[in-house]
């Protein structure tokens, strides 16, 4: 058996972590670019290979029609569900999409689980490069508020990516696990988790028993389509409007320029977490540079609607746990978006207590997944997670109403039995429609599955079929039926409303292996070489420019040495060394890059690398 890892499959970034057998502490694994964050971006190269992560993120600007980000927003959803999403995100949905969405990347078509599987496979590669061993099993985290279809889609992605998914763990619960291990916290804990595209709030009770620590989730709530992305969308819409008014440039919201602007705005957003004001300088196609100064106050007024939208679920989760904000012993912030000062302040005011931010909010979920992976792998009986189902499970009854059979916030695994009989003589089938959600009418809830219960012919009312609905520890529904007269077990083929069937998964797994055939290390070397070529060319071009006379002799010598070192490293196949040399050359040419730009543009391009100029 291979190694086991914990994976945070995020909207914006994904991470992979493991538990260090020596220290017992979880650790995130670095990728080839030296970061633990793998951008959740996938690109199909013109030569048919799949590019994932940082390399794919760069292609968002150069090949947007072959590149996709935020695919998590499409997981487990049908074409009709994502109409709002389509206005805000550059998803190219294929017209062949029926229940399952199919996305176009260049000339090919993929389902969201397949795209997520590419990300998982990339992380698996990172981990295998780190261990020098096979990785074949994983714990993957999902937003606590994910429904059955979204969970199933994530599990499918794991299978397609070549991983046995031992457990899906809810993201806020994973974060609590990481904090619990780190801080030895006890009592009632609220976890506020605002990620790139999803929001969760979970209320937990941490209990010490003689056997070990129990993390019992009391309630959870959230919004699977609310996150840092929405803040970016607000900023982008605001600036689009300003540019339209001042410069009369109306650019298509999903084009290359829009991606450039989005990138620049995310940078402004990050700077505003530290500084009281930040200036956007954005070069326009007409040669002008659009400038706008954001004060933190104006920024906060703009994004307040997003922050306010999180508070409804927070209040509901507390009400469901029958607790008040002041009953919480600890509050934990998770997700990159919680670096925003307005969010920290809002949470602190609501709970009347300073939230924990000691662990890196980007990494904490992956760390928790690694802790759970270790528990499942080693059978470490020092900790136990008791999680809940976020949404009520119901079945459709007469007149399109829904009868709730497993209420939300029930500890999982949870089950319910329903007894069915026939209404007409010799009736051979009973139709059952399973739903998830809190609304009273079936049409307002999420359809999970429809199936027909087969009944042997008999007088009306005589058959007695007991159907068992079971939500497993992953939050995924299983259905079984038993004929009470004969004691016979029926297996039920449940065709999920928004899922992929097993044979399709098999096919996707095979295809995914084909895409992945190129060896990971080999691909890294090729990518690193390509990148070094472009920076070497850019450096040579820059040195030929008269402006380069402004360099000191020392600076010039440093650049020459770095160029030589990079050239030398490219002859070998150590991609980590090549990357290191690239970074060194980038560093050595910082002043050169500045010299090259005229004063107006230079400020706009502050902090850029030479190859990007």
């Amino acid at each position, binding site marked *: 058996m291979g190694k086991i890892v914990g994976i945070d499959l995020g909207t914006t970034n994904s991470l992979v972590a493991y538990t260090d057998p020596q220290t017992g502490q979880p650790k995130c694994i670095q990728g080839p670019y030296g970061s633990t964050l793998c951008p959740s971006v996938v690109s199909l190269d013109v030569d048919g290979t799949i590019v994932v992560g940082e390399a794919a993120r760069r292609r968002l600007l150069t090949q947007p029609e072959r590149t996709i980000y935020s695919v998590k927003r499409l997981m487990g959803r049908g074409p009709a569900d994502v109409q709002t999403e389509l206005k805000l995100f550059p998803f190219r949905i294929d017209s062949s999409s029926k229940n399952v969405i199919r996305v176009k990347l260049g000339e090919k078509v993929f389902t969201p689980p397949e795209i997520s599987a590419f990300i998982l496979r990339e992380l698996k590669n990172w981990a295998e490069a780190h261990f020098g061993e096979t990785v074949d099993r994983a714990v993957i985290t999902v937003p606590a508020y994910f429904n059955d279809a979204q969970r199933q889609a994530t599990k499918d992605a794991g299978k397609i990516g070549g991983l046995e998914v031992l*457990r899906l763990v809810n993201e806020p619960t994973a974060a609590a696990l990481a904090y619990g291990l780190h801080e030895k916290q006890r009592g009632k804990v609220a976890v506020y988790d605002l990620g790139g595209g999803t929001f969760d709030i979970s209320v937990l009770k941490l209990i010490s*028993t003689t056997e070990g620590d*129990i993390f019992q989730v009391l309630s959870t709530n959230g919004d699977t389509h609310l996150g840092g992305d929405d803040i970016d969308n607000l900023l982008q819409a605001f600036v689009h409007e300003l540019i339209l008014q001042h410069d009369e440039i109306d650019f298509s919201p999903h084009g290359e320029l829009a991606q450039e602007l989005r990138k620049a705005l995310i940078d402004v957003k990050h700077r505003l977490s530290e500084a009281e004001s930040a200036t956007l300088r954005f070069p326009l196609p007409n040669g002008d540079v659009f400038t706008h100064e954001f004060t933190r106050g104006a920024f906060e007024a703009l994004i307040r609607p997003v922050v306010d939208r999180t508070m409804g679920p927070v209040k509901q989760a507390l009400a469901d746990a029958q607790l008040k904000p002041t009953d919480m012993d600890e509050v934990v912030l998770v997700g990159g978006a919680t670096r925003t000062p307005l969010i920290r302040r809002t949470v602190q005011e609501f709970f009347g207590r300073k939230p924990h931010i000691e662990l890196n909010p980007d990494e904490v979920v992956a760390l928790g997944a690694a802790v759970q992976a270790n*528990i*499942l792998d080693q059978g470490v009986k020092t900790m*136990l997670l008791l999680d809940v189902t976020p949404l009520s499970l119901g079945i459709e009854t007469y007149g399109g109403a829904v009868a709730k059979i497993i209420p939300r916030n029930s*500890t*999982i*695994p949870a089950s319910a039995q329903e007894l069915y009989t026939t209404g007409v003589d010799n009736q051979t089938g009973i139709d059952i429609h399973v739903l998830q959600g809190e609304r009273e009418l079936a049409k307002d809830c999420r359809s999970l599955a429809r199936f027909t219960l087969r009944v042997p012919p008999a007088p009306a009312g005589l058959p007695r079929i007991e159907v068992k609905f*079971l939500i497993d520890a992953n939050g995924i529904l299983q259905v079984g039926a038993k004929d009470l007269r004969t004691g016979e077990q029926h297996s039920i083929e449940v065709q999920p409303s928004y899922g992929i069937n097993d044979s399709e998964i098999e096919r996707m797994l095979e295809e995914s292996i084909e895409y992945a055939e190129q060896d990971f290390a080999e691909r890294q070397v090729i990518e690193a070489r390509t990148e070094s070529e472009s920076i070497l060319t850019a450096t040579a071009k820059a040195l030929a420019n008269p402006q380069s006379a402004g360099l000191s002799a020392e600076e010039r010598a440093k650049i020459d040495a770095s160029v030589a070192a990079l050239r030398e490293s490219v002859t070998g196949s150590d991609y980590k060394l090549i990357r290191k040399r690239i970074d060194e050359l980038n560093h050595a040419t910082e002043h050169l890059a500045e010299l090259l730009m005229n004063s107006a543009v230079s400020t706009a391009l502050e902090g850029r690398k030479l190859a990007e100029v």
Partner: protein
Amino acid sequence: MAALGSAKDPSPDCFAIFGLPRKLWIEMAALEQKFLKLSWKLHPDNFVSGTETERELSLKRSSELNDAYRTLRDPVGRIEYLLAIEGARKEGEHKQQAPPELLEEVFELNESLDELREARASGGDLAALKTRLESAEKSFQEKLGEVDAQLQAAAREWDAALQSDAATRKRVMAKLNDLLNRRSYIRNLVANVQKELL
């Protein structure tokens, strides 16, 4: 794994899972302790690398444990469940006839609700109607409190009659059943009014 028992074992009732007699008064702290202890033993996390039989059994036993804890923690759900396993209440039974002594008030309430809907449709004055409905809601809330108190008394009666003859037990069960129906009726009324007042 001895902790899981065998697949052939019949599913125990919620009280039996916790080793409790079929009494309606339950000490919650002790119930929680027992729940946590059993969770350690039965949870699927323990059997990830076990055999398929073990995994299935663990799923079955731990879901039964969680279902039982959910049922017993809820004082009303507990009574409904007890009556169901004692055969005194059919699953899903909710008698929808108004209790006779409430008929007049229910009639008035429904009239007010109709008026409110009409006024809303025709843009009429809502304030007065709302006040009337709010006071009706309050009155029914009080009645709900009374029923809950009566249910508690009847539950104590059941616990005391646990060792009594079948006739006595049957009488207490009938009483509990009536009270549950009454409670469910009033609760629906209150929910309807609250929905209109939103």
